[in-house]
């Protein structure tokens, strides 16, 4: 499997800016790292097989959470089409570490399962490949939190693929908090396959890394499922953050909600591309897509494209995107009451992001997001 994937990768290479799905995502830094590493180790493929990733995975191991068994090749690449994801091909060839979370049927896990992925100094100038596999059994419920952090200041590239199987009538809250240092390169594909009447809530926050690209995809394998994708991004300096969301409605009675907001400052760039396709057989589909951006400087840039393709009449679908600046009248209003300009700006930024955080079910996840964003203030002032 690895050999085959490596062959495929060496043939097709990394996507280029000519590739529609990657045209806004500059991968030259990734390419440079890969090339250098290959020259250094001479046979990156053999290296990967024998060595664990230098991304340290911290979690409480128990009967539900284990390291992925990479010898068991039957468990990989079932929740997405490999041909559509060149970075997943690379990951298939070189994957080194990851967690396997398996929740049996009829099981409710009350405590959140927290996986902290920390890049250490040994990861410097290297590519790291993680593969996480999550299986939620029938009628089961769990909350899984992935935190990505850096314990090094050197550049590295981490390429992650998550495969999520949500069983019938299951409920999963899936959380990503990406707070790596500003020179990290982070690419992550989250591929969700949902059985009938399952609920998946994906909450993502990205504020670190030089390049952060997320592909979050929901595949509704049967009727009656719901997938919420709620997220926030912050980019400053020369950061590039990139979310590609996708939901294909091929089954009836499924619901998608995509709500992302981002703040972009300095010379940073954000890309938001969300696609919902409602096929002819997908009766009573419901889809809602919203993306709002705040630009804090003249040199910051946002490319937002919520795409909705509907091939059916009996659906409810809405989409919208905005790009704006801090409201000058609101700023004056706050300062005219004695609040310092910097503090007033912070209040408005916080207010902008709070609208997304309020959509998160879990109070604990809300608090994690607020902390990550430096929002300490009690929201209600009570």
């Amino acid at each position, binding site marked *: 499997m690895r050999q085959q994937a490596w062959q495929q990768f060496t043939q097709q290479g990394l996507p280029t800016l000519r590739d529609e799905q990657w045209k806004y995502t500059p991968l030259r830094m990734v390419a440079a790292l890969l090339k250098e590493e290959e020259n250094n180790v001479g046979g990156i493929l053999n290296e990967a097989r024998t060595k664990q990733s230098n991304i340290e995975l911290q979690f409480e191991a128990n009967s539900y959470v284990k390291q992925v068994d990479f010898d068991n090749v039957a468990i990989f690449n079932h929740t997405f089409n490999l041909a559509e994801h060149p970075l997943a091909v690379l990951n298939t060839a070189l994957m080194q570490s990851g967690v396997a979370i398996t929740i049996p049927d009829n099981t409710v896990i009350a405590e959140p399962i927290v996986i902290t992925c920390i890049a250490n100094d040994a990861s410097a100038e290297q590519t790291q490949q993680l593969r996480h596999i999550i299986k939620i059994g029938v009628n089961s419920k769990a909350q899984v939190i992935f935190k990505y952090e850096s314990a090094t200041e050197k550049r590295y590239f981490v390429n992650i693929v998550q495969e999520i199987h949500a069983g019938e009538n299951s409920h999963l809250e899936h959380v990503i908090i990406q707070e790596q240092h500003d020179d990290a390169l982070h690419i992550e594909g989250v591929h969700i396959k949902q059985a009938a009447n399952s609920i998946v809530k994906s909450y993502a926050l990205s504020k670190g890394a030089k390049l952060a690209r997320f592909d979050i995809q929901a595949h509704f394998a049967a009727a009656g499922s719901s997938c919420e994708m709620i997220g926030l991004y912050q980019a400053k300096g020369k950061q590039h953050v990139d979310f590609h969301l996708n939901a294909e409605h091929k089954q009836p009675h499924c619901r998608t909600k995509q709500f992302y907001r981002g703040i972009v400052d300095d010379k940073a760039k954000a890309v938001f591309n969300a696609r919902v396709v409602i096929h002819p057989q997908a009766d009573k589909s419901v889809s809602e897509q919203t993306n709002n951006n705040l630009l804090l400087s003249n040199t910051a840039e946002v490319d937002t494209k919520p795409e909705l393709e509907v091939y059916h009449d009996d659906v409810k679908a809405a989409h919208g995107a905005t790009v704006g600046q801090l409201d000058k009248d609101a700023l*004056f209003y706050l300062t005219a009451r004695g609040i310092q300009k910097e*503090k007033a700006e912070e209040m408005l930024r916080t207010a902008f992001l709070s609208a997304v955080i309020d959509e998160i079910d879990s109070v604990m996840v809300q608090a994690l997001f607020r902390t990550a964003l430096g929002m300490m203030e009690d929201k209600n002032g009570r």
Partner: protein
Amino acid sequence: MFEIKNLHATVDGKEVLKGISLDIKAGEVHAIMGPNGSGKSTLGNVIAGRDGYEVTQGEVLLHGQNLLDLEAHERALIGVFLAMQYPVEIPGVNNMSFLKAALNAKRKMQGEPEVDAFDFLNTVKSKVKQVNMKEDLLYRAVNEGFSGGEKKRNEVLQMLVLEPTLAILDETDSGLDIDALQTVAEGVNSLRSADRSFIVITHYQRLLDYIVPDKVHVLADGKIVKSGDKTLAMELEKEGYGWVEA
């Protein structure tokens, strides 16, 4: 206490204030009336420090300190309050925490500790009653979805909490029914004191039936063209602005 000396200001290069002078003693209420486009709101905004206006000449002195040297928030902290003509809606900023942040900013400047949460709640609740405002508006976002009258009551509530030295009411009466007008006026009157002054900007005389001014000035084309006592407002009501402009 508050003095404006030969104030000239431009917007986009066009002069809108053409030499305004005012002298307001402590405890006085001055009304500024005038037709639309005469510069009334500009005057309020320039005093409060809104962006977009260029002061080309003159001074604005509060207790001898030139406000024009200060940022908008610094002016507020030394006691300037502008009740806005069009209070802006600020989604996501809770009305109560905004009020608290504003009050604490003032207390900090005065070297006082942050207000006790319990005391604050009680104070605010009593003032909410005073302006006859629905209490749940405190827990909503600032002005978001408020009716016109609720927005104006919210302005007066902020004024009551912040207890300014110089309060400027920019057409606070516009869009208010008679009940709301009286409530707003009562709020203002309750704050009247020997060390506090008011500038009441209005298009109509009716507010001045409730907030009785010590002086009335008529602004036309960026200049004060006539000053007098409260009877001037009544004359204006009868004769129209054509009478002073002519």
